[in-house]
């Protein structure tokens, strides 16, 4: 089972995502955390295949998180799910994330992206 970690400061977004992934509950193991530090904590505790994170978050932004993930857990496939198309953020995240998704992202697209990311990870390893 693939393990996917979702990070977003907005709890309702995390709930929504969780529900949306209900059909895949048997295929993917999902964790939902609301801040970067927790995410890093979980990553250090167990292996995750994919991390999907928002960018604009208080305390530790998605960019900073991904920088850490790259540093500490380079094998985790990194996806960005952002509410903004800010070119600056885009620019910053480009080298850090394997895919950049913009909210609102429909479930089909998201699933496809994650599956692709998983495959990527498999291929990489």
């Amino acid at each position, binding site marked *: 089972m693939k393990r996917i970690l979702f990070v977003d400061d907005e709890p309702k977004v995390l*709930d929504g995502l969780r529900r949306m992934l209900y059909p895949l509950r048997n295929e993917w193991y999902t964790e939902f955390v609301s801040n970067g530090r927790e995410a890093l904590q979980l990553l250090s505790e167990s292996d995750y295949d994919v991390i999907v994170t928002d960018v604009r978050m208080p305390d530790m932004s998605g960019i900073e998180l991904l920088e850490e993930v790259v540093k500490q857990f380079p094998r985790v496939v990194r996806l960005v799910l952002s509410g903004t198309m800010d070119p600056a953020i885009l620019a910053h995240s480009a080298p850090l994330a394997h895919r950049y998704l913009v*909210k*609102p992202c429909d479930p089909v697209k998201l699933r496809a992206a994650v599956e692709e990311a998983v495959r990527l990870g498999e291929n990489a390893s």
Partner: protein
Amino acid sequence: MSTNELRQGSELDAKANLRALIESTDDPIWSVDLNYRLLVFNNAFQADIQRNYGVRAAVGMRTEELLPPARDTLLRPLYDRALREGAFRTEYPLLDGRILEMAFNLIVEDGETKGISVFGKDITEQQAAEDALCETENKYRHLFNSVSDAVFVMKIDDDGMPGEFIDFNDRACQYLGYSRQELERLRIVDINPPERRPGIRSITRTVIDRRYWTWEGIHLAKDGRRIPVEVHARVVDLDGSPALISSVRDITERREAEVRYRDIFDGAIEGMYRTGMDGKALATNSAFANMLGYDSVQEYLSTVTDTRHQVWLDPDQRTEYLRLLETQGHMRGYEARFKRKDGAVIWVSISARTVRGADGQPHYTDGFVEDITERKMAQTALGESEANLREAQRLARIGSATWDVASDTTTYSEEMYRIIGRSPEFIPPGHAPGRPPERAKFYTPESFARISAAMQRALATGEPYELDLDVVRPDGTVRRTHASGAAVRDDSGRVVKLHGTLQDITEWKEVQARISEKDALLQLAHDAILATDLEGKIAFWNHGATELYGWAAEEALGRNVNELLQPVFPIPRAEILMLVESSGQWEGEVTHRTRTGDAVVVASRWTLYRDAEGGAGKILEISRGITDRKRADEALQQSLSQLRRAQQLAHIGTSTLDVRSDTTIWSEEMYRITGWEPGAPPRTFADRRSLYTPASYALLENAARQAVAAGEPYELDVDIIRPDGVVRQTHASGAAIRDADGNISKIVGTLQDVTEWKAAEARLSEQAALLQHAHDAIIVTDLNGVILFWNRGAEDLYGWAAKKAVGAKVHDLLRTSFPIPLAQIHEVLQDQDQWEGEITHQTQSGTAVVVASRWSLQRGEKGEPTKILEINRDITARKAAEEELKLYRQQLELALKAGHSGSFDRDIKNDVDVWSPELAALYGLAVSEFGGTSASWDCLVLPEDREIARAAVQEALRTGEYRAEWRIRRQNDGEVRWLAAQGKVFYGGDGQPSRLLGVNVDITERKRAEEALRQSQSQLLMAQKLESIGQLAAGIAHEINTPIQYIGDNATFLAEAFRDLLRFLEPHTELADALRNPARADFVTALEQSVPNVDVNYLRAEIPKATEQLLEGVARVARIVRAMKEFSHPGPVEKAPVDINRAIESTILVSKSEWKYVAELTTDLDPELPLVPCVGGEFNQVILNLIVNATHAISDVVRGSNQKGSIRIGTRRDGGWAEVRVSDTGAGIPEGIRARIFTPFFTTKEVGKGTGQGLAMAHSVIVKKHQGTIRFESETGVGTTFVVRLPLQCVGEKP
């Protein structure tokens, strides 16, 4: 003798005696028997009968024989009565008029009545007395009862108290209310009230002592009423003992009247008084006291003890008044003057009467007094004005005449007679056309023709006439007159009368002639000569005045000299007038102002010019301008001539003293000098002591002695005293003459009166000092220019000392440069005696000085020119100042030109506009093209702005200056130009605006620049807005996208969940069938298999949550979209009422992505905050900026930590303001930059992060656009609060 005999003897004696007695009496005695026959009678009886009835009485005669029947019938009944009653008495009239009192007795012998005896007693006198008494008594009683007063007669008891009433009249009963019987039983004590009873004794005593007394008392009536009474009581002797007669008057009414009277007295408006004959004030009312200035009656009565001196102005007048009053008994309307308490005098009119006492002497005067001061004053004034009127008429010498057409009679006034020289008896002739022209001889032929024609015309047409006529008096003298006439019409329009006046103007004409003579003379005088009336109206103004003051005669005549020349007098003008009127003239120095406003000091002599009647007419004012130099000039002249005079007066007197005989001879001149009478001179020297002052005498005596002793001559100054007391200074000399033997025989002396000389000397040194000290340079030269006199002022000015200057040639010394050749100046001097001009001199040190120089030619005795007097005033400084001023003016003109400004000078009164060339150029005109009036300027102004321009000028006229901007159409190219105008009003002498001076500047470029700036500012604002919207766009997008994400996710989930649930439900519906149908066993397996596929519990829990969050997400999106719409909606550009709480909420939402990561944002918005007038879009912009700034400030602080700061936004109403506070917990604004944070382009952020426009724009919007305020409170390390305040202007309450 026996006893019987004795008895008989005694009886006989007795009888004889009786007989003798009976015979001796004059009263008739007789007896009759029972038949009334005479038995016995005496001689007196016989005599009576004889006398009365002519019957000789005899014994035995019967009464009818004795008496006539008439008498008999009288007597018989009496006898009958005697027999019947016994003894009795009665009166019995005899025929001869006597009255007898007859006593009838019965003669009884042995118990038997034998006869009747009658004793007659002549009681005629007694009767008469009784009758008289009775009459008197009757009269008395009548009087007693008819008197209106009550009268009591009472005894006086031994204890001195009034006793029983002996008698009282009916009135006594009446007033007391007792019946006669009741009153008889009473005494005085009983009719007095208890409290008065103790006093009765002493009153009685007083009456007894004085025999007569009057007092007021109270009596008690029967019904208990207390009656005020006045009692007059007298002691009389009644049958040997004292008795009181009291007359009592009920004075109730009088008392009431007194009270009423007192009321009237006190309250009267007229002054009333009662004064004793000695002048003591007895009673007054308030009106009288007040009239005399006393505060109260009490004060008057206590202060005024002697009206003669304290009230009457003239005590003698009071005596006169009293005398009149005594003679007449009363007075009406007597006018006198009274003194008030404060000493002021008032006129009063007195109506009074004298009141006399019982002794017939006047006791006091009662008077009514009226204050007639005002009336008197009016009368006096009237009298005065009437007198004035009469006087005026007399002075005007106008005679009048009236001709009645119908009756052809003429009446003349008194003055008319006088004018035509006829006596009042003369009957004026008629004027009817047919009559012989007697009037012709009143006039000269020519005048007669004219007056006749005028009168005919007046008669025919009613036309009034006025003409000058020559009137011929009977004595042949001709008088010039001025005649006027007017017609009087009746109702039908016919002329019924002619009124004419005639005024003798002969003197006037002569005077006029003299005046024009004098006029000519006066014109020639150099001095300024004016004639004014007493008020100062100028009637004459000569050429000298024109020269001195600058006003032409036409301008000055009729004006008031005080206005025209604005004189400043050394003493008040009124005092001068008084002096002039009393002594005829006044001299003094006056400062006048010339036409140009310069001050001139004049020596002025005023004289009073009276007209022919001697009435004050005009004041002649002769003035000579005397500035310092003139004064010096004159002074010099004066002293010079005084000097000459002194020299002329060098008379010398001589005296010769013969030493041996000690006699002196004086010359004529000596007498003249000393003032002694020609004749014998004072013989000895000692006699002449009185000639000298003590000091001088001592000196002279000493000198003379020396001369006598040693022959030494002497010469000294002595002061002599003339007989009239005047002291003269003299110069005395003396020398000794020796005889042949060498002895001194004579002393010859001289005396010279040098008083004037001395005075002149003194004056001269005074003048010299004056001249020396005058500031101006004063130089006197001879005709060749050789300096004779050089004053201190000249030394100071030119640097040459007097020693050096005197003797030198002036124009060489000073290197004079003249404006015209010196020769010409000399010509002018010869011609006019003076010259003035500006000359340049060189001082000793070589500096040039410009002087205002006045030259005056001095002439000798014969009028030949002798010297030139030059007075110079240094005006170099003034000149320099003038030059500087000119330069300054030029510079100013240049400056104006450079600044594209033009100036104008408008004469407001005459509406003349003078423009500088620059100003005309501004308007696109040449100066000549400008119309020159305010109207021609007005049409150059753009029509839309004309009101502004006109209003500006009005403003200036009101407040003194104006500032305004308006557009004009430039005339040369038609372009519209903006002008800024500034003007100031200058006022004339009358305080009214007279000139408007100002400047116009072309500010078109500036205006354009301003416009451009304004435009770019709004563009900037827009750009700002766009920038911030752009800034937010990303954030907003994020804000929206986030909820949309989970909306979609939830919806997807719900769809999935629903599918699952359906799958779940399907078998369950079949279950029911299955349960009913045991055959479907496989169904259970299928069922069991479905369960794991459906996580029912999960669904049960999550579906509701999903739904909820989905809906929430939708709402959130909607909110954001709305907020965005509201925020970015441009809104009206003008201010409109805005709910700022809502605006703030929108802004908060819109900016959420900015702050939500770094801060908690809380709001405290006042729900009662009314709508605030503002430009919504711009307000939102401001709040956004503040929130963004707060967010940045906090993020600086919390970066790196997972803390969040806090932003608090609050609104509240504060009076007329809405206040918005945005607080953050950032780092605070450093002190060093606090002053600059509102500066445009000031920012602390890095490049790319904000342009620094936010706060500058916020400041501009809040302060300039909204007239609000924006400020901040900041504490480093704590945080910052921005406070924005917007005025509410009470738009409306929030619904």
